């Protein structure tokens, strides 16, 4: 009785979306057919291998069979779980079913988590279905127990694919679904050969090498960081417009460079030695800084033009609290200011890289990334500017004009006479020109050109920020706790 009650309690505490997903998965005809076909195919393969093949001492056939099964499982998992999650979520969104789920007391995070949990359990189901045949492969010789660790490499990839599927599905738009499929095919092209190469290396019993564990750790950490980002973006997409839906994504992006440092610490402690490439850590850190700086302005484009009163209700009354709240909850303004706050971090972390003064490579990469980031920032800012100033042209057209005119004009004097205008000033006038030119020149004279490119981009970014400043200041003036008192809900309504 106690056991039954215990199981009953667990069943009651399950996420409702997860329960629904499970019911849908196991009642889907295509799913059942897939499972059946998988079992039949494995059975035939086992018979074939056991009767037609003669296994040698080092068990190469066993390894091949093992790889075949593992990759079949991975591909099926992606097809059934990730694509299935994307398709069903997109349908729910377009059928408006998601709206009705949102009208319950479910939180958007529960909905996304439920979807993810459902897909993960299905992946586990598929792999558990493969177990008898993996056992057969093991007993058919040659399959080292250590090589089973290959599946550890697959897991984060599958989770990320599923999260990407949930994210694409959360839009409920056909063109996003098409983009997702293109991404999936592209990923398959990149992933499958890489996985086979990796598998071959692993088969040489190199799995106990610290490098293996180090790479595995990095893979998991990177997958975790990207996965959280996808989760938060999915959350933002399905959250109602009245909520401050980009807040979690903004907080996360702002914390990302610091979080990366924390996640890299165990790697340092466990594996760092005198010959270790310290600059690699700097580049990883720099990469995440660059990612945050570039993505934060783009987030502003997905925020509502004016905050709802719900957001203002959470605004602290003191100045410091209000300023902090403004940074993260003020629609576009915070998304423009936050990257400026992150900008000094890569500079402060330069000692982490312990660059060799004679090796220019780190500067080239840093310069390249700086240029890329500032360019992305410029594009995002110009989009925001066109949106805020409410120009008669649509934002995308305005941006194209901005980028095209800004980049073609400087070429004209160059075409007439290259000596008439110093190239240095050209780089400042044209953002794309400066980016392209700098990237091309980077390899010849890295330090100087990278610095010039960065300066040019910063000038454009600075001008754009100045143009946006009045709107930001106005938003800050309006960002305060509302004057009117509002009646709170009764206990009956809150259910507490």
């Amino acid at each position, binding site marked *: 009785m106690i056991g039954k009650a215990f199981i009953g309690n667990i069943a009651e505490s399950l996420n*409702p979306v997860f329960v629904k997903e499970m019911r849908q998965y196991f009642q889907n005809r295509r799913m059942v057919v897939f499972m059946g076909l998988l079992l039949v195919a494995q059975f035939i393969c086992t018979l074939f291998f056991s009767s037609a093949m003669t296994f040698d001492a080092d068990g190469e056939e066993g390894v091949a069979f093992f790889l075949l099964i593992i990759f079949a499982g991975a591909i099926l998992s992606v097809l059934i779980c990730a694509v299935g999650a994307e398709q069903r979520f997109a349908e729910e969104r377009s059928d408006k079913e998601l709206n009705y*789920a949102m009208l319950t007391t479910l939180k958007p995070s529960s909905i996304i988590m439920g979807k993810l949990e459902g897909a993960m359990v299905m992946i586990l189901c598929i792999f558990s279905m493969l177990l008898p045949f993996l056992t057969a492969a093991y007993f058919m010789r040659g399959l080292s127990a250590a090589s089973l660790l290959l599946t550890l490499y697959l897991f984060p990839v599958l989770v990320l694919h599923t999260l990407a599927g949930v994210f694409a599905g959360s839009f409920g738009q056909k063109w996003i679904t098409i983009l997702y499929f293109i991404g999936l095919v592209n990923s398959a092209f990149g992933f499958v050969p890489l996985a086979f190469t990796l598998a071959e290396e692993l088969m040489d019993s190199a799995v106990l090498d610290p490098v293996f564990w180090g790479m595995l750790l990095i893979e998991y950490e990177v997958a975790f960081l990207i996965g959280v980002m996808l989760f938060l973006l999915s959350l933002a997409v399905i959250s109602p417009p009245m909520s401050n839906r980009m807040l979690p994504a903004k907080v996360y992006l702002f914390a990302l460079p610091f979080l990366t440092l924390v996640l890299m610490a165990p790697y340092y402690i466990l594996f760092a030695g005198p010959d270790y490439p310290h600059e690699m850590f700097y580049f990883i850190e720099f990469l995440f800084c660059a990612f945050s700086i570039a993505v934060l302005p783009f987030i502003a484009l997905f925020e509502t033009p004016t905050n*709802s009163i719900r957001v203002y209700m959470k605004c602290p009354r003191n100045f410091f609290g209000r300023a902090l709240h403004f940074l993260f909850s003020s629609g576009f303004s915070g998304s423009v200011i936050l990257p400026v706050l992150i900008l000094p971090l890569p500079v402060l972390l330069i000692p982490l890289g312990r660059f060799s003064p004679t090796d220019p490579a780190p500067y080239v990469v840093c310069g390249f990334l700086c240029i890329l980031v500032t360019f992305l920032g410029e594009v995002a800012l110009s989009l925001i500017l066109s949106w805020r100033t409410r120009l008669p042209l649509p934002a995308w057209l305005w941006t194209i004009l901005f980028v095209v005119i800004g980049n073609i004009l400087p070429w004209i004097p160059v075409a007439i006479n290259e000596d008439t205008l110093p190239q240095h000033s050209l780089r400042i006038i044209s953002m794309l020109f400066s980016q392209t030119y700098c990237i091309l020149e980077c390899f010849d004279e890295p330090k100087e050109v990278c610095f010039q490119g960065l300066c040019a981009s910063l000038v454009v970014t600075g001008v754009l920020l100045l143009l946006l400043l009045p709107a930001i200041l106005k938003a800050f003036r309006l960002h305060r706790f509302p004057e009117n008192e*509002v*009646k709170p809900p009764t206990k009956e309504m*809150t*259910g507490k």
Partner: protein
Amino acid sequence: MKTEVRNLSRIFGKTVAVDNISFSFEDGNIFGFIGPNGAGKTTTIRIMATLDLATSGDVFYDGVSATLYPEAVRRVVGYMPDSLPGYKDIQVWEYLDFFARSFGLRGAERTRALNDIVDFTNLGELRNKFLFALSKGMKQRVSLARALIHNPKVLIMDEPAAGLDPRARHELRTLLKILAEQKKAIFLSSHILSELQDICDGAVIIEQGKLLSAGTLNDLLSQVTGGTPPPAAAESAVPQAQADGTSGLSGAPAAPRTQAAPQGVSIILKTPRGEAEPVRLKLLEHPLTRSVDLFDDDEVHAVIAGSDAEVSRVVGTVFAAGLTVLSFNRNQMGLEELFMKITQGKVQ
């Protein structure tokens, strides 16, 4: 529970979908929400159900703002949309179970709620069927069950009768009447005005996002015909309108359901041939007579308007004069006529 829509506006780009509308209603009543296509009904309903956010104004449930506390409001509001349940690979009871779980119902409480709602909506035989295998009428019942699974106090319905056959409509009407008797406030939009007329206590009429008229059916008819509203409606609705600027549905005790306000009586009298004209003139002298027409020199068609007592007195004099009464009908203006009179058929 008092539901109050206050100065609600919703703007999409340059289109003003809802333009500063205000009205309110209380529990135990059924209110119709009518207007031409594109009038802003669905937008208003979505904001009331916390699915959308108003550009300005708000909706209050017992004074609690739907904008500020949507999570709290969702516990007391049930929303039945115009679209049908669309989940795939799921049975009816699993679908309802999902929503019951989503509203935080656990264990025996959830089982009881599911059984009650399945009985109420007569879904017992369908509970193990897959959603995709259901007809439109059945899906509507599932949709109603979903909206009621958490026993809300206010039920908001968007075109609930659209596409239903006469039997299904009759069943829906019956269910709504039972819900109103259970002291739930029901607010529903529909194009089938004859359906609304049979069950509604009041109506809100909008066109091009603007509120044209709101009140009990008696109020609305009085506004159109210029007559005096009955005392019950006048006492409750007018002060509300004056006090807070709303159009005043609030607190209006239910007028007898299924009856629109009387617009007087029509009488057809048979007179000896050639004597119709003196009768017509005699009738026209009476202040309550609205119109008198002659047919074939021996038939008089008269419309007499006034309170029941006044009309009775006039009819008494007709009988006393020894005239033959061929027909005697109480005139009622239907919601449809009312709608046609108030709206102009403009869309945004």
